[in-house]
């Protein structure tokens, strides 16, 4: 069985991002970049399936600029076998990414496609579902548990009221939630080994995909700031404020 794992290069989750001075876009120059945390969980899950002998090859892929090779190398250091960069300087939307991935699914014929449930920059939560539509594969989104039984994936999903379990015929798409697993750290020898693993480059044009955006970002702004509050000395003062000033209890 082959697993395809799309990953995204994003600003590190610990970094506070602000708008550019002219308000045209988020200011991301010179910020620390990482693999999107949800993608890291997807990579980890694929590697665990390989360690269990259920998956023979783990292929990681990203759609992005040259620098996104760093994130692919990180995934290779974690245990992926080879990597594909779909090289473009366009900021590709989920629909465009899903179309690139559909073409790679045709080339690579994976049995399982593991993605993160959302990227922490755009917060879209769309790409896996869109890939499902374009390939016709079933989807198990927001997965907190994944088991492979024969030619089916059993996915426990995190839904609003609790948990839901679905059974999907392979090939299938699974998007990871935070509780799917705890990703490992790459060891130094593995980081060195990853440098020699295969990393091939394609372009959207070669794949025959038009990735030009359908939406246009007009501006970004900071949300309204909350007024600084007061720190109270005891519970009595707090209850008094809530009753008489804020009138919420």
């Amino acid at each position, binding site marked *: 069985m082959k697993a395809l794992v799309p990953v995204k290069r994003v600003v590190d989750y610990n970094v506070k991002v602000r708008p550019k001075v002219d308000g045209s876009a988020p200011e991301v120059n010179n910020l620390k970049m990482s693999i999107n945390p949800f993608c890291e969980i997807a990579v980890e899950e694929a590697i665990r399936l390989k360690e269990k002998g259920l998956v023979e090859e783990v292929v990681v892929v990203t759609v992005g600029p040259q620098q996104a090779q760093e994130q692919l190398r990180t995934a290779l250091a974690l245990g992926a076998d080879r990597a594909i960069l779909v090289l473009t300087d366009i900021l590709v939307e989920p629909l465009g990414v899903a179309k690139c991935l559909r073409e790679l699914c045709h080339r690579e014929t994976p049995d399982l496609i593991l993605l993160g449930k959302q990227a922490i920059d755009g917060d879209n939560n769309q790409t896996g579902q869109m890939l499902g539509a374009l390939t016709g594969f079933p989807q198990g989104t927001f997965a*907190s548990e994944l088991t492979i039984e024969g030619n089916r994936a059993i996915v426990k999903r995190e839904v609003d009221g609790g948990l839901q*379990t679905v059974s999907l015929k392979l090939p299938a798409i699974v998007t990871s939630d935070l509780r799917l697993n705890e990703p490992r750290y790459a060891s130094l020898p593995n980081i060195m080994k990853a440098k020699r693993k295969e990393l091939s480059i394609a372009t959207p044009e070669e794949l025959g995909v038009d990735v030009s955006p359908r939406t246009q970002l007009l501006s970004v702004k900071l949300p309204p700031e909350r007024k600084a509050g007061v720190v109270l000395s005891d519970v009595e003062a707090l209850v008094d404020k809530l009753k008489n000033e804020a009138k919420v*209890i």
Partner: protein
Amino acid sequence: MTVLILAEHDNLSLKPVTLSSVTAAKLVDDEIHILVAGSNCKSVADQAAAVPDVTEIVIADHPAYKDFLAENVAPLVAKIGSNYSHVFATSTTNAKNILPRAAALMDVQAISDISGIVDNETFERPIYAGSMIATITSGDSTKVITVRGTAFDGASETGGGATITPFTSSFEEASSEFISEEVIKSDRPELAGAKVVVSGGRALGSEEQFSLIYDFADQLGAAVGASRAAVDAGYAPNDMQVGQTGKIVAPDLYIAVGISGAIQHLAGMKDSKVIVAINKDQEAPIFSVADYGLVGDLFTALPEFEAAL
């Protein structure tokens, strides 16, 4: 131009979250239809028909839609939705699962979790865990959109009189199958729509001690939330998580107990009207957004608070 809203329901009753999409739809167009896709869901259609300003209910009643599997519902939404200028659904896990799949079938770029409407083609939505608001415009023929429930008040539930039209053809994919559901039962108000929310964090220390949060919430008639740390530690179930990856809430009163206030948590609650923080660490980031802060041990503060009520 007409807006189609995908109803959120459990085959028996319409979920109030759907009403936020009605309010949002009114800002786009006067003509609003609701799609009820489910199985034996006539009562849901009747309820939807009573929502004011809605003119037509499209009911797709078929066993294939019983469990709202995206593989079956998305082609239905794409088929019906392509006749509309906008397709809306309130951002629930269900809508997040189905709408992007429907959008890709229609070859349009979906727009997630909008918090504001500028005009028919221009929308505001939070990005980077709510640290910025982006204004985006879409040229797609049908705009497929999920609506942040807390950003739009719910429309009224009665007074309308929409016609109900059945949609008979159905879509069924054999590739996915519903197995089971573990629904967490609770008598407390639903988290996403509650007026008061009490949330506990890692500082509670154990699942047993987290019951202090339940007791406290019950006294206030509040819903219970949790930080990711509390959920990961096993103190609270995951459907209680408030934040970027959990639920977004905006109650009248949000009481954060033993929660430091990481950016990912703030993303889920900083639009609350009044925020109260109870924390031992006066440097905790939660105090930078709290209207009222209390620096102290939650294990002494909570009983005192209860006694004072």
